[in-house]
């Protein structure tokens, strides 16, 4: 059983007909992990015992003729910043060593209630801070398309697991592109929903006004299936949106004729990989051929987005990560010279370089004398970025951009230059600052065989439109 050659709905249908047992599929997934993950390093923790237990339970349901859930027996992977009860959650950090959450995140719980089987927890940049999954405290994940390249980040393990057929669907989290960039680099689909659409309960907080959970899958339909299951209001997240969820699968195949698509001129920057640019021009043509109306638009504050993002995200992170002080979670160091000594020694030993750098930057931006000049200023520019999108969505229904200015870069290439790593997020972070939904889907490969991603953005809560447009593209593209 190769997960790359079968979709989730077909798999569930095979189970229903008794053509395949869940146990044998789960066994083949772990065989694939044994073969592949020694090179890719997508997983931090495997949940083998639990997965086989789940599989046996579903198999006996099938034998008893009971009805199945939409994702019954579908093997899924979870980014290691989401809680799954009784399984360690590391966040890619030494800080949480030995921490096992006593509860399960809402999004993970909903996947499990829909029948999905968690096979493991995936690698990530420490506390989701990074764009390459090289910042994990344990090991770097490699891109299944070329093991010398990064898978993107910070949800690199989740993207690589799906791309390598080691899971059918996976969950990631996206604060500034952490789902869409790895999706693009690994050649899979990944969607970041509207802020508040998916509950963040049980997601380790990085930047609370930006974080959002979303799924990866090899196809748009599977992405839609997973999102339909995990989204919706949750009492346990105070920022969860209490507004009805549109059905995501119902109209997936409807035409996108007459949909208006904007191409922001600010996103076609100098320094963009010419192969990515050429590919994007082909994508535009695909939509034109489907009867969409394309027009150039302007998002004038795009240039300020990275600066705005790195002030807001680090400020929020410096506050969120204050809780890791050796008292309640994971490791504890020092303490001979009292409580403050314990705090400082624990944090010095527990956090990696990039996390410390961001905590320092965020603390600096919030500190007396600099708050107005940096943090407050960034919140105001955020308003302007939001207004840019509001204006744009008066004229168009969707916005089409590259997901990343380049394809996957080589491991180590940007590791010593934090600023150049930050700049690689240029096309994905505006979406988080404005709270919009965004999807990255594969749109071909470059001459070296590395995947290129196309990004679509839509107005708040327009996930159904986004998925429909992505589905239609995928269909047209496969025909080509």
């Amino acid at each position: 059983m190769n997960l790359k050659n079968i979709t989730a709905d077909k798999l569930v249908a095979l189970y229903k007909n008794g053509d395949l047992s869940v146990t044998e599929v789960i066994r083949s997934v772990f065989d694939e992990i044994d073969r592949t993950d020694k090179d890719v390093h997508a997983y931090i923790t495997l949940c083998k015992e639990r997965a086989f237990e789940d599989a046996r339970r579903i198999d006996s349901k099938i034998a008893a003729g009971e009805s199945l859930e939409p994702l019954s027996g579908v093997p899924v992977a979870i980014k290691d910043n989401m809680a799954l009860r009784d399984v360690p959650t590391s966040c890619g950090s030494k800080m949480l060593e030995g921490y096992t959450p006593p509860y399960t995140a809402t999004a993970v719980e909903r996947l499990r209630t829909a029948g999905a089987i968690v096979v493991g927890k995936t690698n990530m940049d420490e506390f989701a801070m990074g764009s390459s999954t090289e910042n994990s405290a344990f090991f770097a994940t490699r891109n299944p398309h070329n093991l010398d390249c990064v898978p993107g980040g910070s949800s690199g393990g989740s993207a690589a697991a799906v791309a390598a057929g080691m899971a059918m669907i996976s969950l990631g989290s996206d604060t500034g592109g952490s789902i869409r960039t790895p999706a693009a680099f690994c050649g899979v689909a990944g969607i970041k929903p509207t802020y508040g659409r998916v509950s963040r309960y049980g997601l380790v907080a990085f930047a609370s006004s930006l974080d959002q959970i979303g799924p990866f899958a090899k196809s748009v339909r599977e992405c839609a299936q997973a999102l339909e299951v995990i989204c919706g209001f949750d009492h346990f997240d105070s920022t969860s949106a209490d507004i009805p969820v549109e059905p995501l699968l119902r109209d997936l195949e409807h035409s996108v004729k007459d949909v208006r698509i904007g191409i922001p001129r600010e996103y076609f920057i100098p320094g963009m990989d010419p192969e990515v640019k050429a590919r994007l021009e082909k994508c535009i043509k695909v939509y034109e051929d489907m009867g969409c109306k394309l027009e150039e638009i302007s998002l004038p504050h795009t240039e300020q987005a990275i600066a705005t993002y790195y002030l807001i995200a680090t400020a929020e992170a410096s506050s969120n990560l204050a809780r890791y002080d050796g008292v309640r979670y994971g490791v504890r160091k020092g303490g001979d010279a009292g409580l403050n000594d314990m705090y400082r020694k624990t944090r010095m030993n527990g956090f990696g370089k990039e996390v410390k750098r961001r905590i320092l930057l965020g603390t600096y931006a919030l500190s007396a004398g600099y708050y107005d000049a940096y943090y407050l200023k960034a919140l105001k520019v955020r308003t302007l970025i939001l207004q840019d999108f509001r204006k744009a969505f008066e004229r168009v229904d969707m916005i089409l951009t590259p997901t990343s200015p380049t394809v996957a870069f080589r491991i180590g290439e940007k590791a010593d230059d934090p600023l150049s790593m930050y700049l690689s997020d240029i096309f994905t972070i505006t979406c988080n600052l404005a709270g919009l939904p965004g999807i990255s889907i594969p749109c071909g490969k470059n001459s070296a065989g590395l995947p290129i991603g196309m990004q679509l953005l839509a107005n708040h809560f327009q996930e159904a439109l986004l998925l429909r447009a992505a589905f239609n593209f995928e269909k047209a593209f496969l025909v080509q």
Partner: protein
Amino acid sequence: MKITETEVEYVAKLANLEVHEDERAELAEQLSRIVEYVEQLNKVDVSSVEPTTQILDGIKHAVRDDRVAARTGSSDAGKTVKLFKVPKVITER
């Protein structure tokens, strides 16, 4: 603006972080570059712009009733760990 090693030390203290002496110079250099980069925001006129803290109009923060509520697979927090032991907080003069 250049961030000095003294400032790195000061901010580290605010953040309850200890920064090794040999890391200080590199951090000061990296943070200076990042701060210089973010200072491009000074070019933007925000004199009549309100800050954004909540993105979605009309979505109010959901606050539930202050009752103990069970949920599927509910948490064992508080059952397993009742107390956290920490080093001495108050020292004699």
